[in-house]
């Protein structure tokens, strides 16, 4: 009993706990760092990850979207705005304007679910930082370009998830 008490006093007199705590931090100083250098390195994401939207094309370069406005109708945040291109013919209607307001979008993925032709698909990245308020609108051409650029990733993603749809 007395010995325990004495040991406690000695420990606090020689700052034993402080020293062992500092030893731990010193040891960790030389451990390999686990930081991910974000824009260059990314954490792996699930195939179901819902990043910013892309619009897809068919293999021959034709736009998939048939301007059915289902995505616009289902969007809970009303983030999508579509205008139909009046000059497009009945066998293939096209959109003139297809805007997504990324400030409104809640990345729920319902637009992707609603689309009958898998035209709009959630992309693999969620890099939504803008220098300018207007940049938050993702226009049709931007999403088409992104779709081309990220095609392998988006396709692989759809493939991986296809059997659950």
């Amino acid at each position, binding site marked *: 009993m007395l010995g325990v008490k004495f040991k406690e006093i000695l420990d606090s007199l020689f*700052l034993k706990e*402080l020293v062992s*705590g*500092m030893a*731990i*931090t*010193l040891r*960790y*100083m*030389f*451990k*390999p*760092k*686990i*930081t991910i*250098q974000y824009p260059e390195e990314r954490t792996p994401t699930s195939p179901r990850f819902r990043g910013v939207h892309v619009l897809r094309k068919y293999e021959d370069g034709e736009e998939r979207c048939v301007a059915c406005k289902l995505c616009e109708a289902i969007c809970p945040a009303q983030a999508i705005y579509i205008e139909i291109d009046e000059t497009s013919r009945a066998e293939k209607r096209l959109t003139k304007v297809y805007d997504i307001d990324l400030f409104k979008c809640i990345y729920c993925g319902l637009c992707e679910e609603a689309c009958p032709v898998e035209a709009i698909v959630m992309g693999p990245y969620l890099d939504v930082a803008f220098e300018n308020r207007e940049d938050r609108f993702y226009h049709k051409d931007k999403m088409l370009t992104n779709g081309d650029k990220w095609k392998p990733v988006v396709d692989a993603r759809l493939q991986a998830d296809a059997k659950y749809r």
Partner: protein
Amino acid sequence: MTEFLQPIHAFGNDTFGVLWPVVWNLACIMIVVGPMLGAVAYLTYVERRVIAFMHVRVGPNRVGPIGLLQPIADAVKLMFKETLIPIHSRPMIFLIGPILTMGPALLAWAVIPFQPEMVIADLNIGVLYVLAISSIGAYGVLMGGWASNTRYSLLGGIRSSAQMISYEVSMGFTIIPVVMLSGSLNLSTIVEAQKNMWFVIPLFPMFVVYFISVVAETNRAPFDLPEAESELVSGFMTEYSALTYGMFFLGEYANMILVSALGSVLFLGGWLPPIAALDFIPGILWLAIKMSFLLFVFLWIRATFPRYRYDQLMRLGWKVFLPLSLFWIFVTGSAIHLLNLL
């Protein structure tokens, strides 16, 4: 050193005549203060890097090679922000507050000896001068808190000055054994007295108490209660912005460097090498190495320990450190008397 300075003094006397001592002193001050400010800036960088490493992160590494330009970017950002002055405050006092925190930390360098004869003012009461000057910092904190026209800042200011004063007491008492052993208040003489044995060996407990006290006095973690961003929203400096806010932090970092220098001079033998064989390395480098080590310990402590509670802080200061240092003064005195050391 003297041979090296002779031609400079001769040249100065020819050019400036009677004004030379003034010019020479100004030049000395520039030579000390310039690198000091650089060191303060880069201490913030080193701090962020070291703490990041201890947290298994990488810290700032984007601006310039391995993030080396980060302090400059921070400084530019601070300077271009707006300095807000709250309404119904006392603008003059509000602005003097940060200056009073920063100023003393630079003033005290006048008596720190970097090397034999390398000191701006070789005062015989160097220790007293440092203690007197460094306690002015508490006024800066109190004035800043009072002039902000906010009750919270006022309370924060009172808390902080209470903390600084409490720990200044125990810090002062830890220096007394050093003065007793060396028989002088002159910092250069104190270093010379450590020729045979650094005072850290006979006075090790005092060194520990000194170090913990200065950690508390410079408001560093785990005693950073004046700031306490999370629970108190920066206490006495809630109302400060941009450069005035930065000045408080520059003062804090300058104070860290200062107390590290003082600790090295008082306990770790200042410019003396650990063994005489290493004499060929200039003394100023030895001092720098010792200071860097102490500064590293500052950062190390911050990365390790959680913040103290205010009553724990006061208890430690008054009920542990004060009796301990008084007891050690007694022990030192008895030892000197019994062993006929002086």
